């Protein structure tokens, strides 16, 4: 049969070198405390070669582990000259075995969490009601704010080259942001920075915004993760 090679390649995805090593130990039914290091090193390196062949990206950590394995192998091959030293008496595989044991435990713990996640996913609680008329219900995190701020800075950097010396205080900007919010329920994040042409002014404004959020005078919200951010004036919120 020259055609019809219907291979189905199933590649297990390994989280990291320890995961791969653990897989090899399990697959070959090895005793974790008595790993035949030469065999497992060969096995491990074969996998690395396979990754290469398949053009898979793999983290540098996989190579670090390869060198660790080779190091252990060489230590086991060479007779230790100074047998007096206590350290030399220890099995060079012990540290690796301990790491594998620990990793295996957390892997199991992760699968326990996964089961709980599956159960919990089927249970629904009431969704937040306030603000009801808006989709913007997720509190923006500091990361979201920083990302949005970076965009603003990037835009301004491209636009302006002149240098203006200005003395601005955070308190003043706080007042101005509150003024912008007057008679409005919210403003867009970008609006706060519009018309501001120096980095200094942008930073002071951003600090003012952070301060307002800290003081719970405004809320930064978005409709979905990484979405646009709106700044809401704090109203009476549910106490919960």
């Amino acid at each position: 049969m020259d055609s019809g090679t219907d291979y189905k390649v199933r590649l297990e995805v390994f989280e990291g070198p320890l995961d791969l090593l653990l897989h090899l130990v399990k697959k070959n039914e090895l005793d974790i405390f008595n790993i035949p290091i030469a065999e497992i090193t060969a096995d491990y390196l074969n996998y690395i070669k396979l990754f290469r062949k398949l053009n898979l990206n793999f983290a540098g950590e996989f190579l670090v582990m390869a060198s660790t394995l080779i190091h252990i192998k060489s230590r086991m091959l060479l007779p230790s000259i100074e047998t007096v030293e206590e350290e030399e008496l220890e099995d060079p595989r012990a540290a690796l075995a301990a790491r594998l044991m620990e990793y295996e435990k957390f892997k199991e713990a992760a699968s326990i969490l996964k089961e709980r996640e599956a159960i919990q996913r089927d249970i629904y609680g009431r969704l937040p009601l306030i603000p009801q008329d808006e989709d913007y219900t997720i509190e923006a995190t500091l990361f979201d704010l920083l990302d949005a701020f970076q965009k603003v800075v990037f835009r301004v950097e491209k636009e302006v080259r002149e240098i203006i010396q200005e003395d601005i205080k955070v308190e003043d900007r706080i007042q101005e942001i509150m003024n912008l919010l007057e008679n409005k329920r919210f403003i867009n994040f970008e609006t706060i920075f519009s018309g501001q042409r120096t980095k200094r002014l942008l930073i002071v404004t951003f600090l003012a915004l952070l301060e307002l959020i800290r003081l719970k005078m405004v809320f930064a919200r978005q409709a979905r993760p990484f979405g646009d951010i709106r700044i809401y004036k704090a109203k009476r919120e549910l106490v919960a």
Partner: protein
Amino acid sequence: MEKEELKSIIECLLFFSDKPLSIEKLAEIMENDNFDQIKEAVEDLQKEYELRNSGLQVLNIAQGYQICTRGEFSSWVRKLYKAQTTFQLSLPALETLSIIAYKQPVTRGEIEKIRGVDTSYVLRTLLEKKLIRISGRKKLPGRPILYATSQDFLRYFGLKDLSEIPSLEEIKPPASG
């Protein structure tokens, strides 16, 4: 306050709230500092829901109580509420979360030592999802950030508190001596 009335008020609050309410919170709202009485009423309510095979249940999660739907009926809820995305955490995220849950407060370096791989991206995602929080900085050179699990972690996994996850000693790796 009559016991039945107390129970009804609690039911109303647990139904309305979009997050678990602690006994302390319930006590504060009802201006009743008899924690035992409130706890008893909540537990009575819990039993009542169970006994009459309600579609709802009084869950004890994240150090509080909340009225939620029962898992058996999830397919019906999904028919009504299609917008719900079936979000699921990745294996690296679960691994990292379990390490944080057991070792908290823990630094990124300590997590990476156990996992053997870079974890910065995963940590960022978990922070964004609010499943973990920054609990401080370790008194070490460089003052590395310490991570701990959040209230949302407990809610996400339906845990009353951290004692509900089995201890590390109890965890037995599958099928190995």
